[in-house]
């Protein structure tokens, strides 16, 4: 009865401007896929009361079975036909439990591909494959396969071949199998969003499934035009996936902030595996210092203290690292050596060109740039712990390469990890199109209590 009513509803809702027959086929296809009852949607006003009770009873009874939490439908939720405007309700996904079962509980690539393959082999007619693909797309980040080209190809492979290829001119002109085409486009869309470059196999699959003039194929061509051009757009590339080892991660982070090819990374302390139970625990300490910084530190006036400050956050993709800097205050103007080369310095040639070419012609020249002068930064480090004892070890390590540091008083100005990071993180995930990430966020950025906090000086 439910099936029939759903079908009927969809038929009544059918847009009159569309090809009626094709619509029927489509809706049939959809309704066939609906036999898990788990799609929740609010209906047309005419029949809404009836449907709502139905749904409520089902969803309530189903909720106890399904382990996953219901999610809000976002705009990207692919419910092109059934989703009425302005009525966001909690929905249940078809195949949710099927996916869980088929993957064998393993939340990784093998589990994911197993689930997909199981679906593909389950039924020769591939019933409900569109819904399944949408679900799989959403599940990808959860399984950590969102950057895996092979998985995308596997997903596309679910589509039945040659069924959706238009056979005559009329079909070609009109949107042949729009729902399937849209689904195919969504797969490519997600690839684009995650920067996955399609390959020949993708092209071959799309040709087989949708034909040459189809929307997914056009999308593919556009991707192949733009993605290779943008492939190396990041001048500071990070490896994918990010290394798990905190030392390697720190290495990448430090190289990024140092922005100096001549800077040398030193691992002052390797982390002890926790199960050894070393007491006190040995967090990793990785530092970076460039020759310029070394020279600047050597010239530092020992009467003036240097400061260890931090922790400051640094984001590497979705990973937040914390670093500390060794810095000094800016010299007061009367102590600064006049290193400026005056215009009357050299008898024979100008030692300075008085040019203002740093700003391009389109820059806003009226823009008021307040240049804040800062004290020099002598070194940076990332450590597993943010306490003074750990950072003192870093300073000791630095003293080997910077003998001058032994005579300079070091003041630790350590703060807490700021609370505003929570917000930043929240926004970060909002930006991503997959809401499932939101659930996933581990509490790693929980505010840590400050271990050692030396009073920040009044100037801050």
């Amino acid at each position, binding site marked *: 009865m439910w099936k029939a009513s759903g079908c009927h509803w969809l038929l009544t809702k059918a847009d009159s401007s569309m090809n009626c027959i094709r619509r029927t086929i489509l809706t049939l296809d959809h309704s066939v896929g609906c036999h898990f009852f788990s799609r929740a949607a609010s209906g047309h006003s005419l029949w809404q009361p009836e449907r709502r009770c139905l749904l409520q009873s089902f969803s309530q009874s189903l909720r106890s079975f399904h382990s996953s939490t219901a999610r809000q439908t976002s705009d990207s939720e692919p419910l092109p036909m059934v989703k009425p405007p302005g009525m966001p309700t909690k929905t249940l996904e078809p195949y949710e439990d099927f996916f869980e079962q088929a993957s064998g509980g393993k939340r990784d690539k093998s589990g994911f591909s197993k689930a997909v393959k199981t679906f593909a082999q389950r039924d020769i007619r591939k019933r409900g494959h569109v819904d399944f693909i949408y679900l799989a797309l959403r599940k990808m980040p959860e399984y950590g396969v969102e950057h895996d080209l092979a998985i995308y190809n596997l997903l596309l492979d679910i589509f039945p071949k040659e069924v959706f290829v238009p056979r005559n001119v009329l079909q070609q002109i009109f949107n042949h199998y729009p729902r399937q085409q849209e689904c195919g486009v969504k797969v490519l869309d997600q690839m684009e969003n995650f920067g996955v470059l399609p390959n020949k196999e993708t092209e071959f699959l799309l040709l087989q499934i949708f034909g040459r003039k189809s929307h997914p194929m056009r999308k593919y061509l556009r991707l192949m035009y733009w993605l290779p051009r943008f492939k190396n757009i990041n001048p500071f590339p990070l490896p994918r996936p990010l290394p798990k080892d905190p030392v390697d991660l720190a290495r990448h982070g430090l190289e990024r902030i140092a922005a100096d090819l001549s800077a040398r990374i030193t691992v002052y302390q390797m982390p002890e595996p926790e199960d050894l139970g070393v007491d006190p625990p040995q967090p990793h300490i990785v530092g970076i210092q460039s020759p310029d910084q070394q020279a600047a530190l050597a010239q530092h006036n020992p009467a003036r203290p240097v400061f260890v400050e931090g922790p400051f956050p640094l984001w590497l993709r979705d990973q937040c690292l914390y670093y500390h800097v060794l810095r000094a205050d800016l010299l007061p103007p009367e102590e600064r050596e006049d290193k400026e080369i005056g215009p009357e310095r050299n008898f024979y040639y100008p030692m300075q060109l008085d040019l*203002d070419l740093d700003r391009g012609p389109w820059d806003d020249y009226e823009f008021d740039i307040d240049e804040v002068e800062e004290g020099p930064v002598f070194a940076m480090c990332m450590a597993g712990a943010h306490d003074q004892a750990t950072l003192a070890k870093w300073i000791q390590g630095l003293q080997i390469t910077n003998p001058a540091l032994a005579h300079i008083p070091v003041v630790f100005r350590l703060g807490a990890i700021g609370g505003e990071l929570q917000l930043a993180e929240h926004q970060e995930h909002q930006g991503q199109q997959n809401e499932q990430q939101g659930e996933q966020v581990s509490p790693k950025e929980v505010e840590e209590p400050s271990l050692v906090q030396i009073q920040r000086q009044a100037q801050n």
Partner: protein
Amino acid sequence: MGDESGVGQGRVGQINVVGGGRRSGRSESREEVPLASTGQAGGTKQEIEMQVSRMVPKVGLQLLKQGKVSPQSYGSLLGMRATRNYANEAMEGSKSFAVGMFKGQLTTDQVFPYPSVLNEEQMQFLKELVGPVSRFFEEVNDPAKNDSLEKVEDSTMQGLKELGAFGLQVPSELGGVGLCNTQYARLVEIVGMHDLGVGITLGAHQSIGFKGILLFGSDAQKKKYLPKLASGENLAAFCLTEPSSGSDAASIRTTAVPSSCGKYYTLNGSKIWISNGGLAEIFTVFAKTPIKDESSGAVKEKITAFVVERSFGGVTNGPGEKKMGIKASNTAEVFFDGVKVPAENVLGEVGGGFKVAMHILNNGRFGMAAALAGTMKSIIAKAVDHAANRVQFGDKIYNFGLIQEKLARMAVLQYVTESMAYMVSSNMDQGSKDFQIEAAISKIFGSEAAWTVTDECIQIMGGMGFMKEPGVERVLRDLRIFRIFEGTNDILRLFVALQGCMDKGKELTGLGKALKNPFGNAGLLLGEAGKQFRRRTGIGSGLSLSGVVHPELSQSGKLAVGALEQFATVVEAKLIKYKKGIVDEQFLLHRLADCAIDLYAMVVVLSRASRSLSEGHSTAQHEKMLCDTWCIEAAARIQETIASLQSDPQQPQLFRNFKGISQAMVEKGGVVTNNPLGF
């Protein structure tokens, strides 16, 4: 030497003096210009004055001339800071070809047609002088003897004084000959032809020694010193170099402390390698004086120029230095020990010594090129004489290709140097204030060409050339210093490249500003866009020398224009790439300067050969050959350099290697590698 005609001759020479005076007058009248607009904080009053004096209202003249912008529109360009230390004028109105070529412009005003500044009277006067001077050097002076004696013979000195050779450019009413720069160049050429040692003695005396008095001296100073200097009764010397200070003005240690009464300065310090240091009576000395900044009250040390007499007391000198060449000239250390210099002996303004030094050096350079052109002439004569008479394998050696190539190259180098020297001197006589790059180029080119020519002469002469008797080895020794003194060639190359880049950079800055108001500056921007478009599409900039170069030289003219376009493209690209940091890219600057020198040389010979062809000189066809030869080779050199700068991926590697190799050598204290034998 007719005194009656000397009055007339003095006129041109005096223009410089008047010009200098007028400039300082202008700066005083503009003291009120707010410093903020120049954007430089902490400048002393003198600096302000100097800057302001350089903001000559010629900005945008170039643009106006091209009829591309309305007067209002270039107003936005005026906002930029127009500091120009090493040359006199704000560059936007510059007529200098060398300045233009960095911008990709063919500024032919100064170079085409080849200038002839001497009027009938001056020419006649010069002709009357050339004969006796030549005869004097041929008959009286003995360069070999001067060299072995390590001094100019007394009789020669006496003769030179009688000739008036010590005051060639001093106005005739002050007892000099009153020559203009071109006339001076012609006589110096004769000196250079015969004896460079004497040339240095004369040059150190009048080209730099008392040039300061001529350029910056007050009327009282001129009246007091110039007559005795012009007659040769007193010799002058230029005291700038110190043991710790070559090019670096900040490391000058000589101090001049003003007395509390303000009437005199006490001078302390020592100067080394001073030409005429042991003979001179009058010294132009540069010393640091404490200057109080009126706005901030801070005391800063600035350089001031003084005229110091030996008779003030406390001036002593060391023994004459033993040298490689120019032995006839006297070079000695000069010590100033508590010398009391009256305040009226300050040359120029107090604290303005830097400007004085720069002007003296800039004004003296052209003479060097002229002298060296003469040297080359006499050396080439010796080489040709040998090549024409030496017989080997039954054939005169000038029939051998190797010798022919050597001789031809020597002739080309001499032709270029000579053309440059008179081009620069004429430009100066025309009243141009914008000859600094050209003067530096002529000094670099002349000193290197003369070295090459003399070296090749010795090569042609073989073992004979190595012997003392023909006197070529002495010339080679004498020549060596010309690549070093008055700014080494390397440093002058930096000057050429950086000064050019500065002007180009200002143009770019102006363009950026113009883009802020694209409609107001539509003409300028469209012109620039068209230029870029033509350059990118390879149509060429539309520049041509066809109107000014003689038709027979059109091929060489095209080569020069092509080279100029390439050069300007690479200058622009590198400036945009390095911006202010270009001052530290010396590998690049060196190459740019080399291209600039070749380019300027091409245009100079094109101009001279064109004049000869159109005036139908007897040697016109020969000059055409010289000109074409130079242009073909120079264009190829420029093209090669530019191509490697533009697109050679190995060029950065090369530069890094230079850096790395030299660093390793310094660390090792010499050659890094071991003997191939292993010990």
